[in-house]
């Protein structure tokens, strides 16, 4: 299939998606919209984490930290001075943050850039630190952020968090950013840089002995991954209308890890499908935590059952589906064409 054909088909797909978004925004049930928004944010998080963990083989547990940075940075930028005043009643927000207000789009971008900067700071030492230890360092980083944000009362409002965030997030934003994330990261992965990253994953020493600069490329993966995590954080903040340091803990990172493992490490298609699916599954499973009436008998809901089911799901994936549900199979227009022509032949 020629490249131009593929590009045209992809553009067509994007247009169809936007058409769907148009109608969804107008007519869809707000509850389902919220779940969809969450799903697309999960897609951004999963694909960006997959770049670091799946494609470059760097085991990072720091994604929640990058999210937190993005969420707080953007919130502090798109909130109005009045909203900030009402939040920072214990200790006033430092200047000039207390007066600044910029449009949502730019706030998200700056949030992403701050997270990217953090990605650089975390990525730089990661060269010296191998495999398991990297997981620990990045976990440590995530906790440092959480601790810092809990204490910097005059910047983040400490453990109180920020409430009453204006809702800018809607399907237009989340879908667009999800599409951008997928396109950018797919382009990286399919390019020569992607080959370098995968080489680092497969065999660092061999990669180095082919002239690949390990430091530069690992940092690259971290910075790009962190940027999109920051964007996702910013979008999530405006969706939930409230953020606090403790919601961006290692437990959130575990959820994203669950998604990329289920979808397949190094599998973008898997991250997209499982990302959206995860959001629905999370909501769908709420019923196990509610009391249910079966045959007139009320069975009390069990709190925490949702997460227990997910933990079991994660363990099952790790033990029996090491390649994830999709393994290495990615969506491609050629693959789809082949599938359709096979169907035609058998008819």
């Amino acid at each position, binding site marked *: 299939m020629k490249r131009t054909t593929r590009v045209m088909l992809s553009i067509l797909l994007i247009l169809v998606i936007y058409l769907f978004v148009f109608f969804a925004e107008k007519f869809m049930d707000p509850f389902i919209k919220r779940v969809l928004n969450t799903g697309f944010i999960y897609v951004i998080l999963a694909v960006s984490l997959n770049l670091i963990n799946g494609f470059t083989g760097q085991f990072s547990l720091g994604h929640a930290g990058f999210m937190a940075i993005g969420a707080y940075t953007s919130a502090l930028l798109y909130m109005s001075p009045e909203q900030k005043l009402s939040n920072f009643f214990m200790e006033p927000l430092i200047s000039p943050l207390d007066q600044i207000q910029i449009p949502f789009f730019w706030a998200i971008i700056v949030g992403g850039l701050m997270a990217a900067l953090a990605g650089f700071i975390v990525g730089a030492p990661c060269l010296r630190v*191998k495999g398991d230890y990297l997981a620990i360092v990045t976990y440590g980083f995530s906790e440092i952020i959480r601790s810092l944000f809990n204490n910097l009362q005059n910047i983040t409002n400490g453990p109180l968090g920020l409430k009453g965030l204006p809702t800018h997030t809607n399907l237009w934003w989340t879908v667009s950013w999800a599409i951008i994330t997928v396109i950018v990261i797919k382009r990286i992965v399919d390019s020569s840089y992607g080959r370098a990253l995968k080489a680092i994953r497969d065999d660092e020493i061999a990669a180095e002995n082919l002239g690949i600069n390990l430091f530069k490329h690992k940092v690259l993966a971290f910075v790009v991954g962190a940027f999109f995590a920051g964007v996702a954080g910013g979008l999530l903040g405006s969706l939930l209308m409230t953020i606090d340091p403790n919601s961006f803990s290692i437990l959130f990172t575990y959820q994203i890890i669950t998604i990329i493992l289920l979808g397949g490490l190094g599998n973008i298609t898997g991250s997209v499908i499982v990302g959206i699916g995860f959001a629905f599954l999370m909501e769908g499973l709420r019923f196990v935590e509610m009391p249910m009436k079966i045959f007139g008998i009320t069975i009390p809901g069990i709190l925490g059952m949702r997460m*227990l089911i997910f933990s079991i799901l*994660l363990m099952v994936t790790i033990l029996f589906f090491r390649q994830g549900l999709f393994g290495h199979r990615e969506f491609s227009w050629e693959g789809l064409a082949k599938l359709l022509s096979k169907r035609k032949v058998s008819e």
Partner: protein
Amino acid sequence: MDISLFMQHMVNAISLGFVFGLVAVGYALVYGVVKLVNFAHGDVFMMAAYFMFYTSLIFGAPWLSAVIIGIVLTSLLGVGIEKVAYKPLRKYPRINSLVSSIGMSFLLQNFAVVVFGGIQRSFPVPEPMKKTLVLGEVRVQAVSIYTIIFSVVVVLILTFILQKTKIGLAMRILSRDFDTARLMGINVNRTISFTFALGSALAAVSAVFWALRYPQIFPFMGQYPGSRAFIAAVVGGIGSLKGALIGGFVLGMLTVLLPAFFPEYSGYREAFIFALLVLVLIFKPNGLFGQEAGEKA
């Protein structure tokens, strides 16, 4: 600060140091033998506390018996976890085992929430432990003294096991060279199971001392001491037991003394400790006492 307050802080710091140290040694023990960072260790610690709690509560067992039963149950849990979550992945790249230990940690926490409930429970504290000893001007918690004494005993027992028993020898050989050990006829599976049993038992013992100080137990209680011990083991050099103990010690000291001497910055304690971890790893990737393990080309 007067001398009595200082002494109090020191005793506190030392006893907490031992608690972290013991948990850290548990981590280091497992890592040394199977080269696996057992993220679930802190949650095994948590399960130990619950085992003892329920044994004492439901079966009305006297405190010491509950503790011993708890230790045994925890060891069995550790062995079980190894068989289910780590052994099947032994032949695959390390990242699978790492992820599995994270998943196990997640599972144990959520299991505890569902089965034990999210509300805090009170760990039983026997009368002798509730006392406060007064020596002149200095007031010391009995718990701290007991912790220090028994921790030393545990360390001695552990040293004995490692240095003087056959299985201890097997563990030490396995930690040096996995493949050669198998060729020398060492029963690898049994040794690994024993290592996990021992490591989990250490976690259980630390859980006792922890719960005596902080009797409120809840499903996520393993996160904090677990992550502390983690840092301690890594800073000390994750294959080195001596390093882990010293690391845990230093960390315990810092945890108590930092807010004591610098109360204005107590909120940043976490950030400081994690920053310490990151710095040590950057400049000494194998920890302070760890060995260089270079890769051959």
